[in-house]
């Protein structure tokens, strides 16, 4: 009796899960597997696909592809830059909002706007801000007697930093809100006790706030890292990888290889390299974090 009940329950559960399982298997699990398989073929994006297994050829070609190495370097600067600046800027804002300033409500709503907007709209907006002809940023700098004719998105030196700032703008809200929620879970008594012991603001931050936030910082940094590494639309619309490939992040490079050069197999190999790379970086980062945590507790 109990066994049939359990079986009936399981069948019920299976029936309820099935509708989500099918699209997931067909449209995300299968593509992932096929994607890896394609990396070992010479598939091209043509009408009559006729391709064969080529082993590690694609990876061999990659090693000699300087442009791909360049894009990896740019991608790393973009990802680390955006992730670190996001964290720093968001931490500042979260601490401010947590110290009971007025305007908190306004700032919170305002802070979510960048995140809600379509990336294309964000890119259009920032193109206007950065514009070399009557853009407000140059006008602002001119007001302080600084150079006011910079072509932010078109100049080799400024394009990548300019794009990174937009990345920070988009990702900041979510990081801020998450950190703020973490801050609000820290018992006020901890701060009061530290203050009574004569700890200044900085000391209270390093001794109380930061250790309590550590787990949240670790997870939000990991997630932001992956999101930023995978982000495509913003850079594509802002600069399309230009000028002169100075903002050619890897995801964009793979897209062009696949859909402009039509080299699907080669693009898939790049994708595999990117995935391996990001998993490795995250593994090292998380290991270091956990080791520090253990050391912290051991003290």
């Amino acid at each position: 009796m109990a066994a049939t009940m359990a079986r009936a329950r399981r069948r019920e559960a299976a029936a309820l899960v099935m509708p989500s399982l099918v699209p997931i298997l067909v449209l995300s699990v299968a593509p992932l597997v096929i994607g890896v398989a394609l990396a070992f073929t010479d598939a091209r994006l043509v009408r009559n696909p006729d391709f064969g297994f080529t082993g590690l050829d694609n990876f061999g070609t990659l090693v000699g592809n300087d442009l791909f190495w360049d894009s990896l370097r740019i991608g790393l600067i973009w990802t680390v830059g955006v992730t670190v600046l996001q964290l720093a800027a968001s931490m500042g804002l979260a601490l401010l909002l947590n110290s009971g300033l007025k305007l908190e409500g306004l700032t919170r709503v305002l802070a979510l706007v960048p995140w809600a907007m379509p990336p294309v709209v964000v890119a259009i907006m920032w193109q206007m801000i950065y514009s070399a002809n009557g853009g407000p940023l140059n006008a602002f700098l001119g007001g302080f007697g600084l150079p006011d004719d910079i072509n932010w998105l078109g100049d080799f030196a400024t394009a990548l930093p300019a794009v990174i700032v937009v990345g920070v703008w988009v990702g900041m809200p979510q990081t801020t809100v998450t950190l703020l929620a973490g801050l609000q879970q820290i018992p006020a008594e901890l701060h009061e006790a530290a203050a009574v012991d004569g700890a200044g603001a900085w000391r209270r931050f390093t001794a109380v706030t930061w250790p309590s936030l550590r787990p949240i910082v670790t997870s939000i940094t990991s997630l932001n890292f992956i999101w930023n590494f995978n982000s495509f639309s913003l850079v594509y619309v802002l600069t399309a990888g230009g000028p002169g490939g100075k903002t050619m992040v890897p995801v964009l490079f793979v897209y062009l290889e696949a859909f402009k050069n039509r080299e699907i197999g080669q693009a898939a190999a790049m994708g595999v390299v990117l995935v391996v790379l990001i998993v490795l970086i995250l593994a090292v980062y998380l290991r270091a974090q956990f080791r520090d945590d253990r050391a912290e507790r051991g003290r």
Partner: protein
Amino acid sequence: MRALVRPAQYLALACYILFLGFPLLWLISASVKSSGELNSLTVSLLPEQWHWQNYPEALDRQGLIRSSANSLVVALASTVLVILIALPASYVLARLKGKVRMAGIGWILVSQVFPVVLIILPLFLILRTLGLTDSLAGLTLVHTTYTLPFALWMLQGYVSAIPVELEEAGAVDGASRLRVLRTIVFPLLAPGVVATAMFSFVSSWNEFFFALVLLQSPENYTLPITLNMFIGGEGKVALGPLAAGAVLAAIPSIVFFTLLRRRLTGGLMAGAVKG
């Protein structure tokens, strides 16, 4: 020294507000400036003359209305699909214990970090085989799949918040599980479903990458793709209408997200902390 802390804090907050808010303000301001003013070198936040004409002009442009309609169709269809699919599954996810639940949650978290570049290639080939590239139906399917994980995550949180005792009471009274679901669980879930639906609508409305890869004919373009086309081509000449179009495209997202603020950040928090 101590007396300076508050003013310094407000100064810092003002800088943040400027950084976060100014770009948006500038976009709105550009959308009500005449092209003469936009191309002149004098820079001012407020227009000399309010030029509302940009909005009807933006709508007049070839493709903008059509692509808005496409975006609307895709976003509504994928929202309905997401909810229909996720609702039963989220119930199972929230109520089952053990391996199934772990596998489900694990998959949801992993899918948040899917390497989209790697997936788009085979996805494109699969959809081409099915004859679904360059079609709104294909795009709807893709949007559905990619919103599903987070929708499941949100919904299972709402289900978990409903006390099991309520269901047990219903079951004791002899109601079948379907009846319990329909009369007890789903009504209590309504606010969660609304929040999830808004989220999935906005995700689809904003989405750019898949639309860029999958859609080829201009009559199938969604709003983000059409706006991007304007930048490359005629956009340079007509900044005003472009800005107006961008403002119009951002309105649904901003309205929904403002309404959803609390629920969304709660869900994200849980995801981020547990991830």
